[in-house]
C-alpha cells in the first residue's frame, strides 16, 4: 500500500513539475517560433532586433527580480512603477548639480527609501502590502509629477549614460551586463542563501517560519526594500538609456513585470518562485511587445493580447496552487 501511494504521489509530482518548470520556456519558444515564421520578412530575426529586445527589457527584468522576492514572501509591490519615475528624476536632477556619483546615490537611495517605507508599514504596522503599495504607488506618482512640474529632465552626463545606458564593455552593451549581473546575484541569493530560504518559508507558511526562529517581519521589510532598490536601479537604467527622466517612466511597467514574474513560475501567494523564470518571462513579454508592433497591431490590440497572456498565466499559477 505504501509503495502504491508513493507511485501516485510521484505521478502527480511529475506532472506538476513539468507544468511549472517548463511552461515559461515552452511559451517562450512557441512565441519565438511564431514570430520568426510570421515576421520572417519584417526583420524580427535580425541580430539588431533581437538584441534590442534584450536591451529594452533590462529595466523590467531588474524590477522582476525584486518582485520575485516580494511575491515569494507572500507580499506584493504595486509601487515599483512610481519608484522608477521618482528615482530617475531624483538621479537626473542630482546629476545636473552634483555629478554622477551623487546622482546614483540619489536614484538608488530614493528607491530604497520608498521600499523601506513600504516594508516598515507592512512588517511593523501590519498593513496588507497590497493596500500599502497601492497607496504609495499613487502617492509617489504624484511626487514624481510635482518634482519637476511634469517637465522632462535631460541627462547629459556621458559617464552616467554610458554606464547605465548606451555604453558597452568588451563589446557587450552595458544594459546586458546589468541584466546578467542582477540575474546572477538574484538567483544566487534566492536559491543558495539562508535569506532566500527564509523568504520562501515566510511566504509558504509564516507561522511555521516564525516558530522555526525566522524573523518574519524582518523578511517582509527586506523583500520590499530590495524591490524598491531594484526599481530604483531600473529608474537609473531608463534615465541612462533615454538620456532623460520624466514622470511617465515606468508608468506602464507594473503589469508587464507582474506578468513576467507569474509567467516565470512564481506563485502569487508565495512559497515558490524562480529568478531565471522571471528573466525568461520578461524576455517573453519584450518579444511579444516587439513582435506585435512589427505585425502592425495597434496599441489597443497589443494591450488586449498582453492582457490575455497575463490571464492565462494567472490561471495556470492559481490552478497549480489549489492542487
Amino acid at each position, binding site marked *: 500500500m505504501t509503495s502504491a501511494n508513493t507511485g501516485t504521489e510521484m505521478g502527480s509530482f511529475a506532472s506538476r513539475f513539468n507544468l511549472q518548470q517548463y511552461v515559461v520556456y515552452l511559451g517562450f519558444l512557441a512565441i519565438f517560433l511564431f514570430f520568426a515564421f510570421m515576421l520572417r520578412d519584417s526583420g524580427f530575426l535580425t541580430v539588431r532586433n533581437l538584441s534590442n529586445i534584450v536591451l529594452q527589457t533590462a529595466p523590467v527584468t531588474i524590477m522582476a527580480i525584486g518582485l520575485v522576492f516580494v511575491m515569494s514572501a507572500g507580499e506584493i509591490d504595486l509601487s515599483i512603477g512610481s519608484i522608477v519615475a521618482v528615482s530617475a528624476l531624483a538621479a537626473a536632477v542630482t546629476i545636473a548639480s552634483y555629478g554622477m556619483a551623487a546622482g546614483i546615490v540619489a536614484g538608488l537611495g530614493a528607491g530604497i527609501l520608498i521600499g523601506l517605507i513600504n516594508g516598515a508599514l507592512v512588517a511593523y504596522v501590519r498593513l496588507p502590502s497590497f493596500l500599502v503599495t497601492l497607496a504609495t504607488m499613487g502617492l509617489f506618482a504624484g511626487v514624481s509629477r510635482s518634482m519637476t512640474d511634469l517637465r522632462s529632465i535631460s541627462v547629459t552626463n556621458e559617464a552616467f549614460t554610458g554606464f547605465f545606458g548606451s555604453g558597452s564593455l568588451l563589446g557587450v552593451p552595458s544594459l546586458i551586463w546589468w541584466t546578467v549581473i542582477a540575474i546572477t546575484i538574484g538567483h544566487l541569493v534566492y536559491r543558495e542563501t539562508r535569506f532566500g*530560504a*527564509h523568504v520562501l*518559508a515566510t511566504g*509558504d*507558511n509564516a*507561522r511555521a517560519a516564525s516558530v*522555526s*526562529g525566522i524573523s518574519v517581519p524582518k523578511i517582509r521589510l527586506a523583500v520590499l526594500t530590495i524591490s524598491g532598490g531594484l526599481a530604483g536601479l531600473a529608474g537609473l537604467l531608463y534615465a541612462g538609456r533615454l538620456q532623460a527622466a520624466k514622470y511617465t517612466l515606468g508608468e506602464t511597467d507594473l503589469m508587464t513585470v507582474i506578468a513576467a514574474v507569474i509567467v516565470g513560475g512564481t506563485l502569487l501567494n508565495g512559497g*515558490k518562485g524562480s529568478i531565471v523564470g522571471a528573466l525568461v518571462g520578461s524576455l517573453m513579454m519584450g518579444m511579444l511587445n516587439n513582435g506585435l508592433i512589427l505585425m502592425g497591431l495597434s496599441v489597443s490590440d497589443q494591450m488586449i493580447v498582453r492582457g490575455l497572456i497575463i490571464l492565462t498565466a494567472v490561471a495556470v499559477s492559481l490552478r497549480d496552487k489549489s492542487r
Partner: protein
Amino acid sequence: MNPSAPILQLQDIRKHFGGLTAIENFSLEVFPGEIVALVGDNGAGKSTLVKIISGVHPPSSGTITIEGKPVTMSNATMGRAHGIEVVYQDLALADQQTVYMNMFLGREPLNRIGLLDRRRMIAETEKLVKELDVRIPSAHATIRDLSGGQRQGVAIARATHWASKLILLDEPTAALGVAETARVETIVQSLKQRNVGILIISHSLDQVFKLSDRICVLRRGKQIGVRETRKTDKNEIIAMITGLQQQ
C-alpha cells in the same frame, strides 16, 4: 550524566493572564528516556503549559530547571537553544518546500563560502528519516505531496534532530487516520532510546496508555495528580480528568 536525574523539572509553576489564573502550582519532573503524558479536558491548561515549557510564555512564578540548571526563557528561540523542541498538532511545516529544507528550517547549515549546504542537509535528512523509519519517497520530496502521517513523521524527525533535552508533542495524531496514527506512535515509541525526555499531550487515552510511562492530569489549571501508567487504569484517569470522583 546521571540517568536518574530529571532532564526537566517544573516547580510551583503559576501563570496568570491578567486576573485569570491559567495554571496554578504545577510541578513535574521528566526523566531522560521517559514519556510523560499530559492529559486533561479542553481548557485545562495543557496548551498554556506547552507554551511555558517551550519558552513562548514565561511563567508568572515558579522555576523551570533543565538538567539541574534553572533557566528563564521568553521566546521559542530560547527554548530551542536549551534543547527543547515542539511538534505542533497543526504541523508547522512549509508545504511547498522540500523535506530537507523543512528539517533545517531557520537553522540551515552553510558551506565554506556561506551558501546553503544542501548536500549536508540531504544526507542528514536521509540518515534520520531512515533511523526513525519515516517512510517518505525521498528527502527531495515536497511536503504537500506527502500524506498526513508522513508529514507528522517529518515534523517529529525535525524535532528529534534538534532536541537535545526534551521533545514536546502537542496532539501529534489529532489530524491523522488510524493507520497513520499507528505509524506515528511507533516513531514516538522509538524516541525513548534517544535519551531525551518526551512530554506528549493527547486526547486519546488509548494512546496515552500505549505510549506513556507516567500520566499527569490537569483540570482547570490545577494539577490533579501524576500516576505511573502501569499502576493505574482508564477509569481512574477519567475520574481525575472529569473530577467526578476526587482522589
